[in-house]
């Protein structure tokens, strides 16, 4: 889960890394008060979880508190890439001599965190790495041995930085590495890290992303920052249809029938499991089909849950038929899913044979499942029909490119 800049700066500050004397607000009048307290020119920055805010007019410079208020009012009303700002950050306009970059991310191949440092900051680090590779230092560090300052020193020195700058940067990069680990971050980045006229360093912007699976062990931090459990901060806000899908999945604790994502097609998908869903979604599209949704069934859900998911998809406006398809199941039971989807049709007053374009789930309890499908005259397929062929038949039934 990504943090807003004002939250990320707070995390940086708590770790003992110097930050500017900024303020966060959702109120233009308060922005003026913060600017007055700062005294001097300020920068007003939109707090949105999307890139390109500078270009979109989400960052403005103010010479006076009155100007800060006016900019804050404009920015608070400015939508950027479909996101309304959470608020604005009022920041002193620092006199920066040089901008640096410091970050920590995971290296999934080495399976260790890697520190990245560059004396060229303020721009995208990937761009620096491409254009001036000798200006980017990288160093992995152990997951189980204690972090030691020399590791930070080495990565900074490898980029040619020396003198008092080096000595002042070592504790900052050390603290960043430690906060990355301590907070289960998957990204911890200070960019730019500014060197001021007096030689001191200050974090001017920060990006932090905490691993979702680890949120449970950072409740105090999240509570302090005012981040609620329900806040997921996905790339796109969940739609009412997707929220209804979460409700279906929460009906009971048996298995999964969820991870519903909304699309705008006419073919409803009741599919699984993780890898099977990805494969099937691709296959439907490859045959010219228009999925109404993505979803995942797995872990042997109850009949009620499979029924709830199928009902949700069947009731989605524009959905004509559903295709019920999974890769070969060994834990989830064919008969249980068959009962669920047929029940969904019956309860909505539909003929299952009409509404279910195809049922392709081979595997555990398939003999029993196929009997049920035969009874209701639903077209089904066993493992001799590939996922791809099943998807093709489903699309054919609904009419490719019909919508």
């Amino acid at each position, binding site marked *: 889960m990504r943090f807003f800049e004002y939250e990320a700066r707070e995390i940086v500050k708590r770790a003992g890394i110097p930050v500017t004397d900024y303020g966060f607000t959702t109120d233009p009048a308060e922005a003026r008060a913060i600017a007055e307290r700062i005294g001097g020119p300020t920068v007003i920055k939109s707090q949105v979880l999307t890139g390109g805010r500078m270009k979109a007019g989400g960052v403005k410079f103010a010479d006076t508190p009155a100007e800060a208020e006016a900019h804050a009012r404009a920015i608070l009303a400015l939508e950027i890439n479909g996101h309304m700002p959470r608020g604005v950050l009022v920041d002193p306009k620092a006199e920066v001599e040089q901008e640096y970059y410091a970050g920590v991310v*995971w290296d999934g191949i080495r399976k260790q*965190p890697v520190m990245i440092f560059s004396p060229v900051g303020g721009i995208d680090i990937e761009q620096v790495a491409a254009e001036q590779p000798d200006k980017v230092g990288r160093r992995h560090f152990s997951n189980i041995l204690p972090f030691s300052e020399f590791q930070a020193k080495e990565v900074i020195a490898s980029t040619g930085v020396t003198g008092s700058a080096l000595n002042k940067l070592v504790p900052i990069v050390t603290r960043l590495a430690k906060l990355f680990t301590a907070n289960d971050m998957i990204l911890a980045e200070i960019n730019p890290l500014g060197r001021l006229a007096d030689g001191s360093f200050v974090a001017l912007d920060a990006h932090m992303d905490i*691993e979702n*699976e680890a949120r449970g062990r950072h409740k105090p931090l999240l509570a302090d920052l005012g981040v609620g459990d329900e806040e997921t901060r996905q790339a796109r806000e969940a739609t009412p249809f997707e929220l209804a899908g979460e409700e279906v999945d929460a009906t009971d604790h048996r298995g999964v029938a969820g991870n519903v994502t909304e699309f705008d097609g006419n073919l409803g998908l009741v599919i699984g499991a993780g*890898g099977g869903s990805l494969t099937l979604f691709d296959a439907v599209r490859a045959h010219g089909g228009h999925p109404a949704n993505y979803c995942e069934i797995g872990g042997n859900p109850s009949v009620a849950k499979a029924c709830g998911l199928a009902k949700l998809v069947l009731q989605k406006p524009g959905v004509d038929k559903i295709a019920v398809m*999974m890769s070969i199941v060994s834990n989830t039971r064919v008969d249980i899913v068959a009962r669920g989807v047929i029940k969904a049709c019956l309860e909505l007053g539909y003929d299952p044979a009409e509404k279910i374009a195809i049922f392709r789930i081979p595997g555990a309890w398939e003999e029993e499942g196929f009997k049920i499908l035969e009874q209701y005259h639903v077209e089904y397929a066993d493992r001799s029909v590939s996922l791809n062929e099943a998807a093709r038949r489903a699309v054919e039934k609904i009419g490719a490119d019909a919508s």
Partner: protein
Amino acid sequence: MSILIDSDTTFIVQGITGREAVNLTRECLDYGAGAKVVGGVTPGRLGRDVHGVPVFDTVAQAVAHHGAPIDGSVVTVPPAFTKDAVFEAIENGVKLIVIVTERIPRRDVAEMVELATLRGARIIGPNCLGIIVPDVIKMGGIGGPAKNAAQAYTPGPIGVISRSGGMTTEMSSTLSAAGLGQSTAVSIGGDAIIGSSYAELMGLFEADEQTQGIVIYTEPGGRMEAELARWVTDNNSRLPIVAFMAGRFMDEMPGMSFGHAGTIVEGKEDTASEKIARLAQAHITVAERIEDIPAIIGDKIAARQSAGANA
């Protein structure tokens, strides 16, 4: 032969009294020659048994009871306790650990993997279904009940490595139907950081005489395919590889996660199209459809063999 496990492999199940673990134990005991499940561990349950397998409070007790080092462990404890359970297994001399548990934070996974590496142990998973050697042994829930596993998996020359547990079975079943059995199939897990990647298993398959070709299942997210491509080129691998890439639609949806935890397009290198290009450079064919895989890998193996015969 096979990789990682064979009919002599002994293992324990940590968290053996959980509902899924009870089923998994039954399945492993029933499959092939019957796995040597020499114990189970659930703290506080010493003295019980699960399908005849004795339950202990600690791994040390299980090892003492067995009277010899234990080769492996299947770990099925909840995410908050997994790291401790894996450390316990490693420190008690277990060399092969299959982690079934999902939703483990990657810092924990990274710590487990680093300790395993220090101790000469190997981790498969997390978030995986384990390992199967057709008709011989399975370690984990892979393939499901013995009867279902026997329907999908047959012995033969193909090594299967998959980020999706279910797709390991789907692909193996397709290979079996075409007369191409499997030497060993490994479900490696779908998380961003896992114990054994494709490249980290390739050396084992390379050294296994039974294995003549490799089939992998892959998804967007991460750099494991690039690592595989590099390994194949650097080691001048004798094994032809065919890959299947699911989730191509995700290229249009950066930042959204589908399927497994590791499946998210964050940068250009993570995209399906970029990965396909990299694999192609290393002469790894990316099949458009699963049903095309048997013919492609079959042809590639035949081509290698005739090239070898002519040389």
